């Protein structure tokens, strides 16, 4: 991994990003670069600025200062659609999935395939159903049928549908906002396996989490955010779970606490 990183420039570079909301400084100069085919974990406690940072990356917020360079060119997104078109897709904590609708209707929501019949434009259900089944099988999920409602899927399966959808629509950078935070053990491992599959397809994955073990399971590099600043990026193998945990908590208090909890946090 590190060899290829030296050879190719990063697919997206965030340089000295600052974001102020009125008098609140949410981000105070954060720099992160992400390479194609890597899983870059963004760690941080609640309120560390993770969400603001990825919203800046995905075009929801305009940075107050700083520069975003995507595929070698400076970027200036007007709205999230620009980012999606450019190939930066976000799978939100609150999934863009509608439980009452079928998997295939969800999969193509906002990007419905169309066919022309007698000069009129119709939703191409056959194509949508076929592609949905194929893509889901690639991710290792066997649907009962493309018309199965998303509401009947488990949380992990829904995440996987959302990830598969982003990949299918040409994401080059995939931002996953806490995809494992509400999942059980088994479902978490499914999602982590999905992340691994996506990374191997050459897509850059930005994995936001506050769970160190989940991050270490798939991450290639780790960046810790704390109170709107980065505390540096570490490569896999260069950092221990304890150190990461410490960085996230931003200091000593947790170290003391951890002693009494027996290192279980």
């Amino acid at each position: 991994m590190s060899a290829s990183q030296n050879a190719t420039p990063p697919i997206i570079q965030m340089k000295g990003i600052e974001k102020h909301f009125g008098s609140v400084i949410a981000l105070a100069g954060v720099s992160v670069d992400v390479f194609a085919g890597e899983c870059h974990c963004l760690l941080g406690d609640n309120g560390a600025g993770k969400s603001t940072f990825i919203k800046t990356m995905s075009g929801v917020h305009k940075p107050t200062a700083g520069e975003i360079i995507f595929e070698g060119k400076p970027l200036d997104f007007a709205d999230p659609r620009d980012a999606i078109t450019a190939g930066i897709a976000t799978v939100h904590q609150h999934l863009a999935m509608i439980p009452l609708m079928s998997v295939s209707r969800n999969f193509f929501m906002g990007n419905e395939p169309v066919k022309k019949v007698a000069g009129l434009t119709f939703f191409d259900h056959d194509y949508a159903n076929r592609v949905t089944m194929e893509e889901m099988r690639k991710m290792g999920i066997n649907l009962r049928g493309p018309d199965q409602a998303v509401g009947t899927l488990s949380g992990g399966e829904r995440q996987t549908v959302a990830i598969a959808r982003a990949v299918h629509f040409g994401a080059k950078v995939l931002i996953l906002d806490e995809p494992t935070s509400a999942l059980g053990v088994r479902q978490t491992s499914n999602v982590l396996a999905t992340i691994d599959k996506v990374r191997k397809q050459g897509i850059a994955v930005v994995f936001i989490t506050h769970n160190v073990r989940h991050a270490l399971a798939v991450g290639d590099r780790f960046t810790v955010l704390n109170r709107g600043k980065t505390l540096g990026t570490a490569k896999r193998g260069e950092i221990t779970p304890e150190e990461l945990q410490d960085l996230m908590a931003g200091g000593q208090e947790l170290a003391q606490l951890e002693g009494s909890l027996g290192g279980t946090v």
Partner: protein
Amino acid sequence: MADTPQIDERIKEISPLRRALIRPELGGIVGTFAVFTLFALFAFDSGMFNSQGVMNWSIVSAQFMIIAVGACLLMIAGEFDLSVGSMIGFAGMMIAVFGVVLAWPMWIAIIITFVICCALGALNGWIVVRTGLPSFIVTLAFLFILRGFTIYIPQTIERKTIIGGIRDAAEGDWLAPIFGGKIGQPIFQWLGDIGVIGVFERGTRAGQPVVDGIPMLIVWAIVLIIFGHILLTRTRFGNWIFASGGDAEAARNSGVPVNKVKILMFMFTAFCATVLAVCQVMEFGSAGADRGLLKEFEAIIAVVIGGALLTGGYGSVIGAALGALIFGVVQQGLFFAGVESSLFRVFLGVILLFAVILNTYIRRIITGER
């Protein structure tokens, strides 16, 4: 799907019954069968099923269907319109004001009325989308605003609440027959001649069939149902309607223009109300300030009987049309069966309650909630 069926042992095979249950139309289909069976048993000899009787409840059902299609798509898109009834009264009054009081050509009166009413629908939608207020409250306000104007305008300019003379004003107009005319007269004449349907025995119309054509009201109902059904199930816009009502935030995140969809559906609902209003004033020849009273609730009930969820994101135009059919058949059927007509409301309340309970249960099946 040409995929090899890899069966996951954790997924239980769902029975055909459960599979049928999650179709939104089911309630409507069962209800339609039940209602027809009931009246065939108890009111068959009452004239309900001869040509005049069929035409009678068909027209009433078609009136419900026209507004139910609009209300259905709007409800699936996640909103209500309580101003439908007032809109019907208002649109009729506009036709009368433009076509009779101001004596403009009827086609101009009709077109301008459509433009005004769709604009009002858009205003409804725009306020809902902009303020984020529940559409219940916004359209409740319009229920009163529009009804108020519908009474105020004819009072002020004509000193009465009913304006007549619309049929005379529409004489020879090219657009008016599209709402007030009939089609298929030769076929009905032929059916009368060969004795399939009755003919008048005496009077000036002797020899003419008792039912002499299909009113455009019914044609409009069928056209709107087909249009609504195809729009909802077979187009990308239909997917956006489901998505907007299912979860507006999720739909927005996926790039669905939720606000546009909702505003357009408010406009479509207003359009449907106006279609009914124009058909009515052409048929009656007058516009009354009390037209369309309570129609908004009847439309919503038809849609709910048809299997749509009040919370949006799920439903069917065909179901809503069947709901409207049940409505029309029962309302007229009780009359034919000689039952006190006030009992219709009792029936309405009971069936509404059943429909909502059934829909809630169905939703649990679809979403897999326990």
